[in-house]
């Protein structure tokens, strides 16, 4: 199996769970500790830790231990990276189809 290596699919898998998406939204507003997240979502510390771990593996969340508190924040990977390549691919594909259309128009009547 692959070791720690953030990929598109890891991000997608991390986002498959509604709680994890909610955690990302929460961290989008401000950093939070595991305890604060657990309180906000009415979950056990263990449950939150598990979700945070999955997000961490996908590179979407990083945690830092400050004394006894685990501080969670977004990053280093941004969700924008996940969709960036797909976005530029789409633009290229549309341009290609435009040129294909022009080509067919230009060569009309040929076999």
């Amino acid at each position, binding site marked *: 199996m692959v070791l720690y290596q953030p990929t598109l*699919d890891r991000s997608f898998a991390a986002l498959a769970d509604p709680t994890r998406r909610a955690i990302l939204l929460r961290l989008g507003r401000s950093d939070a500790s595991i305890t604060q997240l657990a309180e906000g979502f009415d979950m056990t510390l263990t449950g939150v830790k598990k979700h945070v771990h999955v997000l961490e593996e996908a590179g979407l969340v990083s945690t830092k231990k400050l004394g006894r508190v685990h501080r969670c924040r977004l990053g280093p990977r941004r969700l924008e990276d996940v969709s960036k390549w797909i976005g530029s691919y789409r633009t290229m594909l549309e*341009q*290609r189809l435009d040129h*294909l259309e022009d080509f067919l128009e230009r060569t009309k009547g040929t076999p």
Partner: protein
Amino acid sequence: MNRAANAAKAAITTPSEREIRIERIFDAPRDRVWKALTDPALVAQWWGRGNKLVIERMEVRRGGHWRFVEHAPEGEHGFEGRYREVTPPERVVQTFEWDGMPGHVAVETMTLEDLGDGRTKLVTVSLFHTIEDRDGMLQSGMEGGVNQSYDALDRVLLELR
């Protein structure tokens, strides 16, 4: 048919964040569209989006390789992949990779539908994979659950911005 007229007939939908589906209707018979997609001499005339295109390889058959290099003013862009299915004149399935994003693989399925009036509908569905998918290192079991949640992803992306 001009671009604007076709735009009305074109449809782009994003069933999931990593799947792109584009429909286009061309005012050309299916055999001509097929040829434009699979004959290197014709592909060279449009695929480069107006840039010079060098077709290094184009083996249009199952398992065959293709590699195109676009010579744009700002530099060269290499693209390549393999044909997974070639069914004339209706279907091509191929992988697509850009040199600039190694490991990010899209599987493109192009379906040509004869509309019966001299026009052809081309449906392109592109599904994005990672190198782990391609090499079969990841279990495919997670796909089901993942796909269900994509509709929420756009919202998440917007809110995080």
